[in-house]
């Protein structure tokens, strides 16, 4: 692997000091002159007809500037299937449906006004599980589709399907076979910075919106469509992304509150801010889907996988977001984690009157990985094979093309598995039955972009100033994951300047080139690839100009040097002759001649070159722009085929746990995470990202569940919705990064943003099984579930024994 100057070296993130000091400005901190505060009236029923809305009292309240409902505003449709309305008209389909909104001069008045709005409902029967919603004759949640055609059931029209090989052959070839069902709960992204936006119109009716989003350019498209719906055809929206306090997928869609802020801003002619408080964030923002999956797998006598059958049922909630396309990512592990031929995969999505869901870190992968990697251990147990050996037998390899058509360029899965086994002391600790146990689980994820849209591209503009500083305009979103850190290092490395001279501008659709969005672990992969391309372009320009500037300026250098050092004899080197564009090198902001001697005077500061060409007659300044679309394809999801990413990330995680058999409490003693990251860009940032992901993975495994009763969220706060605290992460964590130097990756790197939480839960569940012999198949693994399972296990162990005694007497 190449030696790098900045890449791979620990560097503090450029945004961390401001964030630690409270100087970063989140949406909550932003103010606009004359700004009003918006507040939303949400439905009090999960499924009901709206009979009447009385806003008269709210309108009369002093300080209220606007009260809107579907009755006095244009209809704005949005969502992945455009089945959602900014303000609901005739019917509510979930507790959080937006019925009315107000704008007032302060947040308290807005809240008071909301309480004065009276809504008359006619309740309808609710459907709160996919099973209920799929029953024959179940009430329809949506009577028609977006085109107005009548619907006949509650299933979504989206199809995600894959078949390869022959399932029957696979089953016949199986010596061991296991079929089980698994489930995952609703989970909240739990961003520390809650959702919000400020919408503001200028006098030409163009919109500026400060939005907490991960998809500024798709949001621009959505908002422009909304402007059109409002009768403002041809008007534009500019999306500015403030500092984000976390995204985790919650910014992959546009939201009703954003359209409501736009409507209120247009109606009042003043900027309108809507920010969710914590309770609203929990109850009214879309969480991660709940899923149920059935997995059947088999293997032959030698432990080779013979087939895999996967069926997923996903509770979509009442409306459809991008998150409904989770199965597009579930296909990756279903078809391509470990080598298996003879595959069946099918996913169904069902409308219910539960809260509608959206993307969250991992995007379907943690859900299916939970089922698959639990099932791998169950099959290994059935076959009497060590789960580590079982995984090694079926391990993916570089160069393979998987049944889904994924082209595996590099693959460090074997190294990851071995690293986890070694760090857990697997051979010594596995199957010890002393209330302590070890478990592991692996993952595959997109690591080179993820094409789920017709473009998977990302652009970058680099601008140089008179002082040798580089300004980057990039459409990707820094949301706390460290994108700006690696982009800074990549630009510094690729161009040859110091990281201190690189500045990343705020993401703004008005200044930055297009980017599909910061999702699919693509941020670093895409941004750093654009950095390399743009730096090359810029350096070519610099070196071309240096041909002319370098000899003159270096001559001056030499003169000065000689004045200071009389008697100095310069080495034999004709720098005027050697100063050709292809002979230069740029490092730390200085231009050298590659093969020249490294004399202090024999170099040109980039800033001097820039000033020289700027201030001469017909001067010029340097910028470079690139647009990079990675070499991947948009898969056919109905057939489940296509190389969705340029490269794939692999990883294995391991856990050692101890179980209190009296209370069911689980104590994690040790976590190990080994990830094939291609190349470590910034070890400090990467470690932080994996530590955070592991905490989120531990939350998914042991604590987190948004509890919904008849469609209502019962724990909308951090007291009752539990994410791990620092005290719950108080155990040793070993990280290992496998560098496979991927040829598509910038500096060899793959994406690694999501993988850190994907296999954590099954690794812990497998460790619990190893410790006490109980298998929990529905997340989260609460002490209560473990205690119930332990009791059942005890009874089943006692019952046969008693029977045997009876026989004997």
């Amino acid at each position, binding site marked *: 692997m190449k030696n790098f100057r900045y890449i791979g070296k620990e560097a503090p993130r450029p945004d961390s000091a401001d964030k630690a000091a409270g100087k970063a400005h989140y949406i909550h901190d932003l103010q606009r002159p004359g700004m009003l505060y918006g507040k939303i009236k949400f439905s009090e029923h999960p499924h009901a007809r709206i009979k009447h809305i009385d806003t008269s009292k709210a309108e009369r309240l002093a300080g209220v500037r606007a009260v809107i409902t579907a009755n006095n505003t244009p209809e704005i449709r949005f969502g992945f299937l455009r089945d959602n309305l900014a303000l609901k008209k005739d019917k509510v389909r979930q507790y959080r449906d937006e019925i009315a909104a107000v704008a007032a001069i302060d947040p*308290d008045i807005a809240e*008071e006004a909301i309480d004065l709005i009276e809504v008359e409902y006619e309740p309808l029967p609710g459907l709160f599980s996919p099973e209920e919603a799929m029953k024959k004759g179940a009430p329809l949640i949506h009577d028609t589709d977006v085109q107005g055609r009548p619907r006949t059931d509650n299933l979504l029209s989206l199809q995600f399907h894959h078949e390869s090989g022959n399932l029957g052959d696979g089953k016949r070839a199986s010596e061991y076979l296991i079929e089980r069902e698994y489930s995952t709960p609703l989970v909240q992204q739990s961003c520390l910075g809650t959702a919000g936006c400020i919408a503001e119109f200028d006098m030409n009716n163009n919109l500026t919106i400060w939005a907490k989003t991960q998809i500024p350019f798709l949001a621009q498209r959505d908002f422009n469509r909304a402007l059109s719906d409002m009768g403002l055809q041809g008007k534009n929206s500019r999306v500015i992304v403030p500092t984000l306090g976390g995204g985790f997928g919650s910014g992959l869609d546009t939201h009703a509150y954003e359209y409501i802020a736009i409507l209120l801003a247009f109606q009042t002619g003043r900027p309108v801010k809507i920010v969710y408080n914590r309770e609203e964030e929990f109850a009214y923002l879309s969480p991660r889907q709940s899923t149920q999956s059935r997995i059947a797998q088999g293997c032959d006598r030698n432990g080779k996988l013979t087939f895999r059958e996967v069926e997923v049922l996903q509770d979509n909630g009442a409306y459809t977001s991008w998150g409904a396309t989770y199965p597009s990512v579930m296909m990756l592990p279903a078809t391509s984690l470990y080598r298996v031929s003879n595959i069946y995969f099918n996913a169904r999505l069902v409308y219910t009157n539960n809260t509608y869901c959206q993307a969250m870190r991992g995007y379907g992968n943690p859900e299916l990985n939970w089922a698959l990697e639990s099932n791998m251990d169950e099959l290994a147990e059935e076959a009497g094979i060590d789960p580590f050996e079982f995984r090694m037998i079926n391990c993916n390899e570089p160069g393979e093309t998987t049944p889904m058509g994924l082209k595996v360029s590099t693959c460090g899965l074997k190294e990851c598995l071995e690293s986890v086994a070694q760090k857990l002391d697997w051979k010594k600790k596995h199957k010890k039955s002393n209330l302590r146990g070890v478990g592991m689980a692996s993952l595959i994820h997109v690591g080179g972009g993820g094409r789920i849209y017709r473009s998977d591209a990302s652009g970058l503009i680099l601008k140089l100033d008179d002082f040798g500083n580089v300004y980057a305009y990039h459409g990707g979103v820094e949301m706390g994951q460290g994108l700006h850190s690696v982009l800074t290092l990549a630009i510094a490395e690729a161009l040859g300047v110091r990281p201190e001279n690189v500045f990343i501008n705020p993401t703004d659709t008005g200044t930055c080139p297009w980017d599909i969005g910061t999702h699919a672990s693509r941020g670093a992969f895409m941004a750093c690839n654009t950095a390399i391309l743009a730096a090359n372009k810029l350096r070519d320009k610099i070196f071309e100009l240096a041909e002319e500037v370098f000899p003159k300026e270096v001559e001056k250098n030499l003169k000065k040097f000689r004045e200071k050092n009389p008697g100095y004899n310069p080495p034999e080197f004709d720098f005027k002759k050697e100063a050709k564009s292809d002979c230069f090198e740029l490092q730390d902001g200085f231009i050298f001649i590659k093969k020249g001697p490294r004399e202090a005077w024999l170099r040109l500061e980039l800033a001097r070159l820039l000033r020289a060409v700027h201030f001469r007659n017909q001067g010029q300044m340097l910028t470079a722009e690139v647009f990079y679309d990675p070499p991947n394809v948009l898969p056919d999801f109905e057939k489940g085929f296509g190389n969705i990413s340029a490269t794939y990330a692999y990883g294995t995680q391991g856990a050692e746990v101890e179980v209190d058999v009296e209370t069911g*409490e689980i104590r994690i003693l040790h976590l190990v995470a080994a990830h094939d990251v291609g190349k470590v860009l910034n070890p400090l940032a990467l470690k932080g990202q994996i530590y955070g992901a592991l905490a989120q993975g531990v939350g998914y495994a042991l604590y987190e569940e948004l509890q919904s009763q008849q469609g209502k969220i019962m724990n909308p706060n951090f007291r009752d919705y539990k994410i791990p605290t620092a*005290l*719950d992460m108080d155990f040793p964590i070993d990280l290992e990064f496998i560098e496979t130097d991927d040829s598509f990756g910038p500096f060899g790197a793959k994406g690694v943003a999501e993988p850190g939480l994907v296999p954590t839960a099954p690794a812990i569940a497998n460790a619990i099984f190893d410790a006490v012999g109980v298998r929990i198949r529905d997340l989260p693994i609460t*002490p209560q579930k473990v205690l119930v399972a332990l009791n059942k296990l005890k009874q089943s162990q006692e019952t046969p024994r008693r029977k045997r005694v009876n026989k004997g007497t």
Partner: protein
Amino acid sequence: MTLSNIVYYEPRTLTEIFKLLKGLNSVRVMAGGTDLLVDLKQGLIDTRNIISLHKIRELKGIEKKNNTIKIGALTSIQEIISNSLINQHIPALADAAKSMASHQVRSLATIGGNICSAVPSADLPPPLIAAEATVDLKCLGSSREVPLSDFFRGPRETICRKEELLTSIFIPLQPPNTGMSYKKFTPREATALAVASVAASLTLKNGVIAKAVIVLGAVAPTPVMALKASKSLTTKEPSEDSFQETALTAKEESKPISDIRGSIWFRKELIYVLTRRALDEALSRAQGKLE
């Protein structure tokens, strides 16, 4: 709901407070505010007036007088944790305090507030009841001292009258060879309410249990004494068997509900385990084996 329509009082003397309590109609007293403000924001309670106690110095502090430890109602949870009198005489109360919420909340929240909020899962009442604490209820011109075990009437309901203020908590110094323990089950290490909790106090005399008090938390509308279980231990020699039997009795005596934090079955199982563990620790402390 918004707090803008609430009148906020910050009196400097107890007399002023008593007058306000008597004169105002819709009124709540605020100590640390960590329960009250959250409940107000969530619309769980409704009030027109709030009287803050935080300027009343005399309600703060812990002192020993004769054979009693007096804790001012406004003493913060954090002060209880780091107070040497408490750690020396009733370490179980410090344990309970340590298990609460987070450092930030503990610095604001007070013992009086924890008692008066009367939440079934509150952490301080069980060890206080096990230590036979009493509370002082004062109003204009009169005061009464009642055992804490008689103080609670239901979830968020106490015998404290509208014009009364809980000013102090009195804990009698425990007889020699007494050990106490507080055990609590939470789904995570910090910022978690008890799913079930048990406080136990054992007094030994000549190797025999002279007195036992077992108090259960979060498994009934109020903290409750497990009377049968407590009684079953008196005059017995402490042993694994007797503790197990007592724990089973406590489990039967508990009357939990099922909610998002745990089912009836699970809570009863926990009472069994926690009672045994609390008795074990109380015994070790009574025998001087701990601390």
